[in-house]
Each structure stands twice: as structure tokens, then as C-alpha cells.
């Protein structure tokens, strides 16, 4: 049994043969149609996933788990007979008697499902689904064929709906692998109150109040528990209005625990950032939506611009509550069916779904929309349209079949037929495009108030603090902070000021992204060329130095940084002069703050310097660090306090442990100032690696058309680009054309000259007294033998092939040295990483001529570019031929 992610993968790359029998662990034959590397990758992924699954020992719990699934009951009962309406009722009564089945269900079981079961053709839908589930697996082991999507389009039967939502969205896997978590969350936080619980309380009676369950404690209690459990699990998101409506809606179809996990998936994965305190996801999607309307329906868009109607006036609530409040519930639920089905099928976090349908809604109402003069008119038109979704779309038509098509069916048809071009990728690309804009224009409000709420601006101006906020916000968009662990309840209940929201704090991961926006050395900027193409890439750098900085700035030991922490932290480094910088650097590495660095800390500090210098051209910086180390150990030993009466010339001083206090700030300063390069680094260069402007795009050299130039521009999908990049890189490596140029963090030295170390400050006697042992030990710990002569390094030495890999101590130095050597030869402003000898096998490709390569690339792209549009067209076809509602 494969996990959900894997299933998505093979949906994309392979075919599955249906199982021959319907016993639970059914046989699945996997047939791959892809290039070998892809196939290998797939197989190993599958193998690993299966192994991991077995290791987790959860297979045993499968049996008990599936008993909670209605689908099992359906399949079991469906075997018996074929009478049309009777089968389900019979099955239910059967299940009721048997103590064995304990399948879950929602409030609808007791309070009725919305809509008329006959009109919804419940019985025939159930029958179709029973057949499908029997043939292709169900709940945990459901395999999705295009037919599945089609069935979802036709509508899910009420009784099965909750479970199918779970299965389609993937939340069933969370429920499966976290048994008891929901109850535990509620139990552990019993009686706790917070801003979220207060806000939840206010809205409990304001969630689908017309549905009978929410007029009784049954519904209210369930809703309270689900919303509270979510807010306990994700205190950063907590509770946002609209979640109550969502939760109330899904609780009609599923149990509390199921609803809890589904809500979790919706808020965190399907609609990330929609309900967060900054609501950045919502704002971003509004921009994306507007731009899609501009592209797909330019006339309507122009009209709206002309009469100054804001689309988001109407669409913001649609997106936030998934249409539940906007259209009759039966229709909203069918939209949600599609939402879950497509959102996860595209194997991405985002949904194209509500965009498509919203645009279809506008398209259908096109003519009327052009008459609209203001926001009010727009909202009224939409309200009228939604309330008439059940009416015939073509009431005047002479063809009874056409008359029978409801407006809702028309809506789905139009969504799929006309807007199949809007793929998830389109939306992703749009999102990327607008991300920056949204970040800067997030109504500039939250920014201003965040800046205003700072306890101190330190030495920054408001604008500069604003830039820091921008960088932080961008980082949060890219790397949303994970839910933090709740502080103990006692801390939370003592709240004098109920208005106070918990501050947004970011963890280490987000911090790295943040820092990469500010400091040049915290990012990796490179130009990759592989013989086919050249491209600029930016990554977030990883190094212990950055981790250290994070904890250094975390002055309250909370494991997370607030905006204020970042402002104060940056203040501590950005305005420093030479002496202050030296001190700052010293303190950063003085872990126990005793005013001394240990030998280990001296080494770590050197590591940090090497990290910052890693892409500098020439070996000047490398030399500086090497001199720094030898000087530090030399002076350190010389200035060590000696036991009373010891012979100052004796070499036999007791060697000091690597973790004992070793050099103090004064010594450190002296060592630094002994070197021109380091002095200028601490004087100006280091401060200037911090920049508060947005990071500029890397400019590519003009001649980058390369072999794949035209092909490149025609690939629209980002994922495909990534695949192409990876692929051409592989080929490039195998034909020795792969090359990576890095942008240096300081970039001051572009020519190669050897700056001289200043004269030693030590008198000859002192020098003599320096313990050789210290130096020796330093070399043993850190310095590879080749360090002193980087230019002699052999380029073809096997090294890690991925230059952006983590900079663990050895490779950092090693790579810096290699980069140096390469720079010596190439004399480009970028250091070079030549990944010539790659150990990955690309046998078929190595002997390949360029033509062959091209063919392969074509085939590869073809295999990957067959998006979903075909399936969607088919689906639209199917809908046209679907039997009309009676």
C-alpha cells in the first residue's frame, strides 16, 4: 500500500492495473511508461515509502481503521443483491445490528442532509460509487482513475461524501497515522481559554444557523470541539472567521475527528495563508484572481475597471468560505467535492478550482456584468445568480434535454470546457508574479502597524524598519512558520489585555529565508550553464553560522524570533564600526558569554569567516583566515596565563583543553587587526553585506540562447522547467559542460593579488614561546593538508556534486579552496564549481550525440507535459452526456 503522495506520483507517470479481486490488501500491478531515471526514481520512492510504512508498524491498525469507513460497508453490502434503492437501506440496517462495523458519519445522519435525496439521485450515485470502490479500492487504498474524477463531478452521495472528502484531500492519512490525537488535544487543553477560544465562542451560534443541528447542543458542541482542537494544534493560525462556516459545513458529512483533520488539511495545505493572522494567502489569491480575469475575460475586466468595481468585493468571501455562504448549500457542496478532488490531484498545495469556477461564473453572467455600474449592482447580480442555480439554464430552448440542464450544470461545464487552460501551474506562476507586489502593498497597513508597534526602532528609520518587515513577510510567505508548541496553560490564562494577539514569531527555517533577503552571504546566487542553457538560480544558504545568529538574537530563549527581535538583532550588527564589529563577532561565538573564546570556538569562528568568504575570488580571503588561525593560536598560547615560576621559554606548558577559556576580546582584536583583509572586512565589508533593499534579480549575460534556447521559452510550466533543468544538468555533467558560477558575498576583490599580512606584533621571544602543539592541533582538527596550497589542488578530485549542499566544516574549506583554484584559471567574477565527475549513472547519455539528447529531451517533455487537460476535456464530454436531473 502506498501513501498518498506516491499515488499522486504514479498518477502522473504510470498506469495501474485494477486489482483482480476485492479482498482488502488488493493486488496492484504497476506499469511504468517513462524514462529510466524517472522509473528508477519512482521505484525507489515507492520502495522506500512502503518500507517506511511497514517499519512504522501501522499495517496492523489498518483493519480496525477501515471499520470506521463507510465505503467498506458499502462494498460488503453491495455483494448481496441488486435491487435499486433497497441496497443501501438494507446495508445500513445490517451495519446497525452488527457490533463489528462502527463507521463514522456526520450530523446529517441525525439531522438530515441538505437537499432532496430523490432529486439528488442518491441511490444511483451510491450504486455507481459502490461499483467503483469495489473495482479500484477504497478509503486508504483508493486508486484514482479519470473515472473517479468524473464521478465526483456528477456529485457525491451524501452518505459517502465525508469519507470521500477525506480520501480525496488526503486527510484520511493524517487521521490514520495519528490515532487518538484529536481526543488528546482536547483532553490536554481542557478548560484552557485564549483569544481563539473566545472568538470561537462568539461564532458558534453564527454558523449555518438555519441547519437544525446548529440550533441544538449536538451541533454546537461538535463545532466547538473541532474549532478548539484546531486552534490548540495550530495556535499561530488559531481561529479565523469563515473557518466556523467551513467546519460547520463539513461536520454535516463527517465525524468530529474526520472534520478536524480535514480542516487541518484545508487550512495548512490546500489554502495556506488564507486564515492566518496576516491573511496573506487570501490577499495573494485575490490578485491572482484579478489577473486571471484580466486574461480570460478582458472585456468584463475592462468594464469593471471603467466603472470602478472591485472584483474582490464579491470574490473574497467566496474564496474564504468556499462558496458555502454564497450559494444554496447543495450546490456549494458539489463545488467542494470538485475542490477536494482537484486540489490534491494536481499534487500541489494550491487549488485551481475556485479560480476556475469563479471565472466561469463571471463568464456565464458576462452580458449582465457589462451593465453593472457599481459594486452594489455586482453583488446583487451575483446573489441573484447563485439563488437561481437550480433553475434551467435554457428555459426557452425547444429541446427538452437542453431545458433540463440546470444553471449549476452549465457552470461546471463552462468551468471545464472553457477554462481547462487555467492549470494549477498558471496559477502558481501568477502567484509568484504577484507575491512581491502583494508583499509590498498588503495595504501597507499591517506593515505600518507592525512598525508602529515596535517597542523600539533602534537606529533604523521607519522606512528601514518597513524594509525589514517586508523581508520578514516575504520569508513567511515562502516558508510559513510551523505551529509552535503552546506555552503551558498557566501562562495563557493570565491575560490582562484580551486585545493582545500573540506576536508572529518565526522559527529557524523562516529565519534563514529572511536572512537571505538581507545578507548577501546568507544566499547562494549562481549561474548554471550546462551546455544547453544558462540560468540564474537563488537559494537560501545553510550554515551553522546562520543557526548561531538565530539563537544569538533569540535573547528571550523562546526558540523563535519576533519582528522586534529581528530589528534589534540587525541593529546590533548593521551600524557597527570596526571595533564594534569585532566585538560583535567575538560575542556571537562566545557561547557561554564568559568573555573568552575556547579553542573550539576559535575554530568555529574561522569556519564562519570561511562561510562568508566562500565565493570570494582569489585566495586572499582564504589566506587571511588561515593567517588568522595561526595567529590566534600563536598569540593565544603566548598570552596564556602561566603557572607561577614557570620558565617563559619552556615549551612544556600544560596544553589547554579545546573547550577551556582561551583568548579574550583584546587578543582577538589584536589578531584581527594584524591582517589588512580582516581589518577591512570588519571595518566596512561585513556591514555592507547587509542590505535592506529588495534583492535584485540576477542579470544573465546576454548570450544565453544556447542549444535549448527556443525550447526553453516555450516551456510554460515551472515544474517542467525544473525537470528540464535537472535533466540538462545531468546531461551537461556527463558531457563535461556543466558549470556553476557563484556570486561572491562581498565581491570586492576581482583581481588576484596577495595582500600581505602585517608585521607580526609578537616579539621574537614571544614567538618562540608559542606552543607548536596548539598550531598542530588546529591543523589536525581542521586544516586539510592541501589548505596551504590551494592552487595546487587537483580539480578532478571527487567532491560532492551538489555545490549548494550543506557546508559542513570540511567541505566548506575544501570547496573554498577549489573555488579559488578555479578562479585562478578562469578569472571570471564568479567562482566555479565544475562537477565533472559525477557518480550518478547516466550511461545511455554519455555516448549520446547532441541530436540524441534533443530527442530524449523531447520525449521527456512530452511524457511530462501531458497535463490534465485531456482528462478534463473527457470529463466535460461526460457531463454533456450525463443524464439530466429529473
Amino acid at each position, binding site marked *: 500500500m502506498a501513501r498518498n503522495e506516491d499515488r499522486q506520483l504514479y498518477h502522473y507517470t504510470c498506469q495501474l492495473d485494477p486489482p483482480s479481486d476485492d479482498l482488502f490488501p488488493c493486488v496492484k500491478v504497476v506499469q511504468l511508461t517513462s524514462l529510466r531515471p524517472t522509473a528508477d526514481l519512482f521505484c525507489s520512492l515507492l520502495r522506500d515509502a512502503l518500507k517506511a510504512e511497514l517499519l512504522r508498524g501501522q499495517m496492523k491498525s489498518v483493519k480496525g481503521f477501515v471499520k470506521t469507513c463507510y465505503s467498506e460497508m458499502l462494498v460488503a453490502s453491495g455483494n448481496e443483491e441488486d435491487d435499486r434503492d433497497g441496497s443501501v437501506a438494507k446495508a445500513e440496517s445490517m451495519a446497525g445490528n452488527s457490533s463489528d462495523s462502527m463507521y463514522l458519519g456526520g450530523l446529517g445522519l441525525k439531522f438530515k442532509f441538505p437537499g432532496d435525496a430523490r432529486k439528488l439521485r442518491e441511490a444511483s450515485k451510491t450504486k455507481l460509487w459502490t461499483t467503483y470502490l469495489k473495482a479500484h479500492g477504497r478509503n486508504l487504498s483508493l486508486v484514482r482513475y479519470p473515472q473517479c474524477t468524473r464521478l465526483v463531478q456528477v456529485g457525491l452521495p451524501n452518505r459517502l461524501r465525508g469519507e470521500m472528502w477525506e480520501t480525496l484531500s488526503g486527510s484520511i492519512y493524517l487521521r490514520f497515522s495519528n490515532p487518538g490525537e484529536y481526543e488528546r488535544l482536547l483532553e490536554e487543553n481542557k478548560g484552557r481559554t485564549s483569544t481563539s477560544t473566545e*472568538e470561537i465562542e462568539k461564532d458558534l451560534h*453564527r454558523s449555518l*444557523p438555519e441547519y437544525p443541528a446548529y440550533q441544538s447542543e449536538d451541533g454546537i458542541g461538535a463545532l466547538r470541539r473541532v474549532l478548539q482542537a484546531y486552534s490548540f494544534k495550530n495556535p499561530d493560525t488559531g481561529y479565523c472567521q*469563515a473557518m466556523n462556516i467551513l467546519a460547520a459545513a463539513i461536520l454535516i458529512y463527517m465525524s468530529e475527528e474526520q472534520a478536524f483533520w480535514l480542516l487541518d488539511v484545508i487550512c495548512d495545505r490546500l489554502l495556506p495563508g488564507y486564515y492566518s493572522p496576516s*491573511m496573506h494567502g487570501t490577499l495573494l489569491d485575490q490578485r491572482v484572481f484579478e489577473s486571471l480575469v484580466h486574461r480570460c475575460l478582458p472585456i468584463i475586466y475592462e468594464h469593471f475597471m471603467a466603472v470602478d468595481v472591485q472584483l474582490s468585493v464579491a470574490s*473574497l468571501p467566496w474564496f474564504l468560505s468556499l462558496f458555502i455562504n454564497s450559494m444554496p448549500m447543495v450546490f456549494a457542496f458539489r463545488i467542494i467535492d470538485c475542490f477536494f478532488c482537484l486540489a490534491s490531484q494536481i499534487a500541489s498545495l494550491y487549488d485551481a478550482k475556485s479560480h476556475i469556477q469563479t471565472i466561469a461564473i463571471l463568464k456565464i453572467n458576462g452580458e449582465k456584468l457589462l451593465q453593472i455600474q*457599481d*459594486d452594489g449592482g455586482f453583488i446583487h447580480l451575483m446573489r441573484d445568480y447563485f439563488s437561481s442555480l437550480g433553475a434551467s439554464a435554457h428555459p426557452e430552448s425547444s429541446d427538452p434535454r437542453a431545458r433540463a440542464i440546470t444553471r449549476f450544470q452549465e457552470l461546471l461545464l463552462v468551468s471545464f470546457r472553457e477554462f481547462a487552460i487555467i492549470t494549477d501551474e498558471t496559477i502558481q506562476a501568477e502567484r509568484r508574479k504577484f507575491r512581491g507586489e502583494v508583499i509590498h502593498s498588503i495595504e501597507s497597513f499591517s506593515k505600518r502597524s507592525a512598525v508602529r508597534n515596535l517597542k523600539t526602532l533602534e537606529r533604523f528609520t521607519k522606512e528601514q524598519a518597513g524594509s525589514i518587515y517586508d523581508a520578514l513577510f516575504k520569508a513567511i510567505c515562502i516558508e510559513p512558520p510551523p505551529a509552535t508548541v503552546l506555552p503551558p496553560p498557566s501562562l495563557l490564562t493570565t491575560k490582562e489585555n484580551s486585545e493582545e494577539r500573540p506576536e508572529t514569531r518565526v522559527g529557524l527555517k523562516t529565519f534563514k529565508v529572511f536572512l537571505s533577503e538581507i545578507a548577501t552571504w546568507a544566499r547562494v546566487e549562481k549561474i548554471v550553464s550546462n551546455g544547453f542553457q544558462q540560468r540564474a538560480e537563488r537559494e537560501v544558504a545553510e550554515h551553522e553560522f546562520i543557526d548561531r545568529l538565530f539563537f544569538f538574537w533569540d535573547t528571550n530563549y523562546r526558540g523563535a524570533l519576533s519582528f522586534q527581535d529581528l530589528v534589534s538583532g540587525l541593529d546590533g550588527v548593521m551600524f557597527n564600526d570596526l571595533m564594534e564589529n569585532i566585538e560583535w563577532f567575538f560575542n556571537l561565538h562566545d557561547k557561554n558569554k564568559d568573555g573568552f573564546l575556547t579553542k573550539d570556538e576559535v575554530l568555529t569562528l574561522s569556519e564562519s569567516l570561511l562561510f562568508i568568504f566562500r565565493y570570494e575570488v582569489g585566495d586572499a580571503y582564504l589566506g587571511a583566515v588561515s593567517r588568522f588561525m595561526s595567529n590566534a593560536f600563536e598569540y593565544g598560547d603566548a598570552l596564556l596565563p602561566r603557572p607561577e615560576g614557570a620558565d617563559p621559554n619552556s615549551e612544556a606548558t600544560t596544553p589547554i583543553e579545546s573547550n577551556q577559556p582561551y583568548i579574550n576580546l583584546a587578543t582577538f582584536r589584536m589578531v584581527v587587526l594584524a591582517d589588512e583583509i580582516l581589518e577591512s572586512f570588519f571595518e566596512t565589508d561585513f556591514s555592507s553585506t547587509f542590505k535592506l533593499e529588495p534583492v535584485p534579480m540576477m542579470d544573465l549575460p546576454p548570450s544565453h540562447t544556447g542549444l535549448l534556447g527556443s525550447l526553453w521559452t516555450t516551456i510554460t510550466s515551472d515544474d517542467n522547467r525544473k525537470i528540464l533543468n535537472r535533466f540538462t544538468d545531468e546531461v551537461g555533467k556527463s558531457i563535461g559542460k556543466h558549470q556553476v558560477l557563484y556570486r561572491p558575498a562581498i565581491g570586492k576583490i576581482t583581481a588576484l593579488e596577495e595582500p600581505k599580512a602585517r608585521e607580526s606584533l609578537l616579539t621574537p621571544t614571544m614567538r618562540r614561546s608559542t606552543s607548536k602543539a596548539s598550531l598542530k592541533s588546529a591543523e589536525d582538527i581542521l586544516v586539510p593538508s592541501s589548505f596551504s596550497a590551494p592552487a595546487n589542488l587537483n580539480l578532478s578530485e571527487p567532491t560532492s556534486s551538489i555545490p549548494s549542499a550543506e557546508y559542513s566544516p570540511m567541505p566548506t574549506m575544501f570547496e573554498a579552496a577549489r573555488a579559488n583554484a578555479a578562479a585562478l584559471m578562469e578569472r571570471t567574477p564568479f567562482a566555479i564549481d565544475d562537477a565533472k565527475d559525477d557518480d550518478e549513472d547516466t550511461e545511455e547519455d554519455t555516448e549520446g550525440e547532441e541530436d540524441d539528447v534533443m530527442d530524449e529531451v523531447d520525449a521527456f517533455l512530452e511524457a511530462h507535459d501531458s497535463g490534465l487537460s485531456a482528462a478534463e476535456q473527457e470529463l466535460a464530454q461526460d457531463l454533456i452526456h450525463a443524464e439530466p436531473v429529473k
Partner: protein
Amino acid sequence: MSDPSGSAADKSVQVKLVLLGEAAVGKSSIVLRFVSNEFQANKEPTIGAAFLTQKCRLEDRVLRYEIWDTAGQERFHSLAPMYYRNAQAAVVVYDITKGSSLEKAKTWVKELQRQANPNIVIALVGNKVDLVQPSASSSSPATTPEPEDEADDATATPGEPSAGGEPESLRQVPREEAEAYAQEAGLLFFETSAKTGEGIVEIFTEIAKKIPIEQILASSRGGAGRAGAAGGRAGAGRTEGGVSLEENGSKGKDACNC
């Protein structure tokens, strides 16, 4: 009087009004009462913002309120500037049975005074007075719309709660305290009940009296630019004559929400 919006724009003065205040204080209920003279218990929270319009007749012209009813929850706060930008009037609502809601109202007032249109007319409204009046709290069934004349009565007798018979147990914000603050900050002040209709129409008539209509007309003649949000689109209309509001409460009947 339900003109299609196109032609109405020629005759009426458009006033953009925004409602702000903590969640669940009754903003949407106030608008619903004003626009359709209805009340719904357990109204769903506003997501984002809602938009409604309502006309008020002045002596010789019609005032057309474009009402933006915003969401109250703190995290929707960042969307609010979109709605109060270019607003000529703001109704900041708090719940008299909830002390913290007045604090929130004060922060809204501060923000408006700092960031909104400098001539904005602000009204501070303490809602849910029915909860502290023994007669009203139990009588009318919540979901039934009030008869129109009752709303008119409320207009005739401004929401002056009889200090004697009030069960003060539920009240957390004394009228005097809020009124003093309103005076100090230069705000109109009302205590209302969206449930009974008490004081609701008054808010809008008093605002109408205080709005510098001549200025609006003058600026809209100068060409209403598309200044960001959907505001500043006041249609050109007749300008001569003083501004005084029709005193008999016929607004309820004129109500049309197009």
C-alpha cells in the same frame, strides 16, 4: 422609490459609509435593520466585507448611502483601509454589554482620525440596549421583522434609556462614560438596538445632517477619480438649497437596497 442604479446616480448624492467595530457587536444587524428593517438572531459573521446601499431623503434631494459593512475579527483588520478609504462617514460600533468592545472602538476611532479622509464624520454607536431593557429583551420574537411604525417611533423618541428601570447587570459600558468619550473625540453618539430598531435610523439621519454635502458634490463634479477603492464616485446632482433632513420617518418605506 426603486430607481435603477444608473439613473439614481444622477439625482442622489452618494455617501460612502463604513461600519467598524469588534466582531459580533452587531454591525451587520444595524445595517440590516436600516436597509430592510429586519433582524436575524444568530447572524453569520461577515467574511471580508458586505456592501449594501440605502437611500435617505433630504428636503430636496436624495442621499444614497453606500454602506460597507466590514468583518470584525482582528485579522480582517488589515483589509479595513480598503473600505474606509474615501469614506465620508464611519459608524464605529461597540456592544454595551461588553467592555472590551469599547476599547476596540476607540482604537478604530484613532485609526480613522489618523488615516482616513480628514473630514470624515464618525458616529460612535453602543448597540444591544435591548439587553438592558426589561420590556424589549423578552417580547419580540427575534426573527420576525419589526413593523415599520415601530422603527419610526424609535426615530421620534431618540434612544434615551430610562435610567430607572434598567437591569444594569448586563451593562458593562455606562452611557455617560461612552458619551463623554464621544464628546471629547468629537463624535456623534448613539445607543441603539438592532433588535428592536431603537435609534438605528437616527444614526443615519444625524450623519446625513453633518456631512458636508456641498463639498462632496463639488469634488465629484471635478471628476471622480478612481482613487483605489470603490469610493469617490458620487454622482453629480443639484446643488442649490440648504441641507435638512425630512423629519417624518419615511425612510423605512423609501428603503431600497439596490
